[in-house]
């Protein structure tokens, strides 16, 4: 490894001094941009709008279920379609692209790169995702989507969703490749910031999962358009998609959230992350256990659903229980880091804490799901678990946006609005998730498999009330998202926040806010996972020495 030492200075200089072309202005600065920060902001802003719409639809679906015999907002058939719309919107048009966008903007800064590995591919991914998402939504407007009655509109949903998956996969490839190959001299993977690490490991598993879903959807499309509809026709489409909202696949969506928390906690504890390597291992374990493309519903030749052969079998149970381990371990590390530090209670930490709690509750609910005797699989307990994990991830992501706002927008977000927005999403998700889970414990099936029809008549009123509560909870979450969007649009007035308003630890805090094209004029020496923290402490130590 002699070469590691010899060319370091020259390598640092080369990495820090790219020769960028002139930054685009006007329309080109947005529509034609290849700047990862702009692309990331486009992803974040657009996905937030889709999330608001999804939460509103989810709220209406919950309210519709209040009186299963009487209340008519959509009607029975449309309610099923709206349920699939809010679930599709929440995951593929909301949480995943929000995380991808945040990573596209922040990961290159964290690893000391001038840009992402494939900036134009990331830009193309955004535009393809945007128009494909529009087509998915349009398919619902013309009686399509799962359970739709218009064959071409159902096909449009499938084809549009495949395009959405391709776009998300391309954007993920760009981020993962950035972490894998564009790290600054001195930054080994071992020293990679934990958000970037979580994108590497989580993104790898996304890339193993999304193509499987796209392939399954392609087969479904061919079956629907040209085949015998042995996969169940329009009604069967949702069975081919729904596994992405169940454990274990659900967990891999939350992996970047673990990375975000792990980057926020030490900054606000004003000390290094406790056992950085262990944190890397635990995040990796969470990602590995989150590979769940194998846990899908089967299909039979006559169009009926085959029983899921993996339900209540050892692998599924093991994954359900083991998934708690990394989350618990990380919670322990974060508690230790905060306990030994001087905690500064900033907005990002508060949101990260609330989101982390939701994710933990969701994972714990998953451990209960795999206990066969409780008979929770197939009920709205799973829907509640999905709500907790996805909205928990969302709250953490909002914390991440607040944390990295100086790098994204050049300004800090207003504290009151950010906290209010995040808190409303947290409370809404908590209420909705728990209400759905309790209704599931009272034997309410998932909506697509009958809903409250399986509930004992004695429990029906309670379950319907819980459905209403879940609808109200999602309504509150929608309101919180609107407030969070307002916070992002408003930002703080006055001068910029400075390059490093939080006293950050990782490399993104060594550049300007917002970063210039090419990101870094000079890079600090990277000798640990917290180079900016090291540089600050070295400077403070030398100052003390000099004054002494």
């Amino acid at each position, binding site marked *: 490894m002699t070469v590691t030492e010899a060319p370091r200075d020259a390598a640092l200089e080369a990495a820090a001094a790219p020769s960028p072309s002139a930054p685009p202005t006007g329309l080109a600065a947005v529509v034609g941009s290849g700047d990862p920060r702009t692309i990331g902001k486009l992803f974040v802003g657009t996905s937030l709008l889709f999330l608001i719409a999804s939460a509103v639809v989810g709220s209406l679906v919950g309210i519709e279920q209040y009186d299963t015999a009487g209340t008519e907002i959509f009607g029975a058939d449309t309610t099923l379609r709206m349920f699939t719309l809010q679930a599709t919107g929440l995951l593929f048009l909301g949480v995943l692209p929000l995380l991808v966008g945040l990573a596209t903007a922040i990961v290159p800064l964290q690893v000391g*790169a001038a840009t992402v590995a494939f900036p134009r591919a990331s830009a*193309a991914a955004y*535009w393809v995702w945007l128009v494909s998402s529009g087509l998915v939504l349009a398919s619902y407007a013309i009686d399509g989507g799962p359970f739709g009655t218009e064959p071409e509109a159902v096909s449009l949903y499938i084809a549009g969703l495949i395009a959405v998956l391709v776009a998300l996969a391309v954007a993920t490839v760009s981020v993962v490749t950035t972490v894998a190959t564009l790290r600054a001299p001195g930054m080994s993977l071992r020293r990679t910031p934990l958000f970037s690490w979580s994108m590497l490991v989580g993104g790898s598993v996304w890339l193993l999962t999304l193509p499987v879903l796209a392939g399954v959807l392609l087969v479904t499309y061919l079956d629907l358009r040209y085949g015998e509809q042995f996969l169940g026709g329009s009604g069967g489409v949702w069975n081919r998609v729904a596994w992405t909202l169940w454990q274990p696949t659900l967990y891999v969506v939350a992996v970047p959230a673990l990375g975000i928390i792990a980057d926020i906690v030490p900054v606000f504890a004003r000390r290094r992350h406790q056992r950085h390597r262990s944190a890397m291992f635990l995040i990796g374990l969470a990602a590995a256990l989150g590979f769940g493309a194998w846990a899908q519903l089967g299909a039979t030749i006559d169009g009926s659903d085959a029983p899921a052969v993996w339900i209540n079998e050892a692998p599924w149970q093991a994954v359900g229980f083991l998934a708690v381990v990394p989350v618990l371990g990380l919670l322990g590390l974060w508690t230790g880091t905060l306990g030994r530090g001087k905690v500064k209670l900033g907005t990002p930490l508060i949101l990260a804490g609330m989101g982390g709690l939701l994710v933990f509750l969701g994972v714990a609910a998953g451990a209960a799901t795999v206990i066969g005797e409780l008979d929770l699989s197939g009920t709205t307990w799973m829907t509640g678990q999905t709500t907790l994990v996805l909205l928990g991830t969302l709250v953490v992501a909002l914390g991440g946006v607040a944390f990295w706002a100086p790098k994204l927008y050049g300004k800090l977000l207003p504290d009151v609005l950010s906290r209010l927005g995040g808190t409303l999403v947290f409370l809404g998700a908590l209420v909705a998730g728990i209400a759905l889970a309790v209704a599931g414990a009272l034997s309410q099936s998932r909506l697509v498999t009958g809903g409250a029809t399986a509930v004992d008549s004695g429990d029906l009123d309670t379950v319907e009330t819980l459905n209403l509560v879940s609808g109200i909870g999602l309504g509150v979450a929608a309101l919180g998202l609107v407030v969070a969007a307002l916070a992002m649009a408003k930002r703080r007035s006055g001068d910029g926040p400075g390059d490093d308003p939080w006293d950050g630890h990782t490399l993104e805090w060594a550049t300007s806010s917002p970063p210039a094209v*090419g990101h870094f004029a000079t890079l600090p020496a990277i000798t640990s996972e917290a180079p900016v923290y090291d540089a600050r402490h070295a400077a403070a130590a030398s100052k003390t020495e000099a004054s002494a």
Partner: protein
Amino acid sequence: MITTGSKWFFGLGFVSLVLAAAYGWTTGGNGLGPLTAGYKGGVGDHFGYGILLAAAVISIFLGAVATAARDADAEVVAQVAGTDTVPPVTPAGASYWPPVAGFGAALIVIGLVSEPLLFVFGLIVVGIVLVEWAVQAWADRATGDPETNRRIRNRLMNPIEYPAAGALALAVVALAFAQVFLALSAEVAVWVALAAAVVIVAAGFLIASRPRISSNVVVGVLVVGALIVIGLGVAGGVAGTREFHEHEEESDHGAEGALAPLAAPAVVEVAR
């Protein structure tokens, strides 16, 4: 040395392998089938087992790549390249091709479920984007000077782009005018054509008589004119063609005018 990246990929591969074996045995596999990919016994549910095994193989392969590439650490990359420094990465400049790719993807999706012609058109758009993209990516790395790179790219692509764009623009304008004329009655269409010709000649005359006119104004006039023509063409296409044909057929040849010229003598005979 096992690097951090290879540890992750090997770990993912190991977890997938263990899950594959457990999954195979718990879903009906027997003997050594789940351990031997079905060579010595059954593997149980093929779908889930296949996915887990594929994930394991891919992960282990990537682990081997990460080991061989030493996690692509900057120092190692420089060492392999035989240079003192890692190759600099230049941020991408502005390009409108990514949004065009989005447009092409939309055409493919819509065409796939509705109109094959749209699907083919979408494929063509995406194909053009890929070619343009490849050339631009190559040109971006041609020299260290972005302006020189831009010139190189333009010298290569403009001789192809301008004729192609011109032909496309002509086709769109001709199609738009045709839709407008088809939507109008024959008499009105003649007057509209004359008016359009006068407007085009007048605009050309005005532009030609002012040699110092700003190119932005010329571009603006052309863009507004193109938008008006395309808008009218779309409106004409949506509103008029079918009624125009029915009207003409009824007035010239009566209710059975679909048979057109050959049927005309019979109509005359009936009239006697």
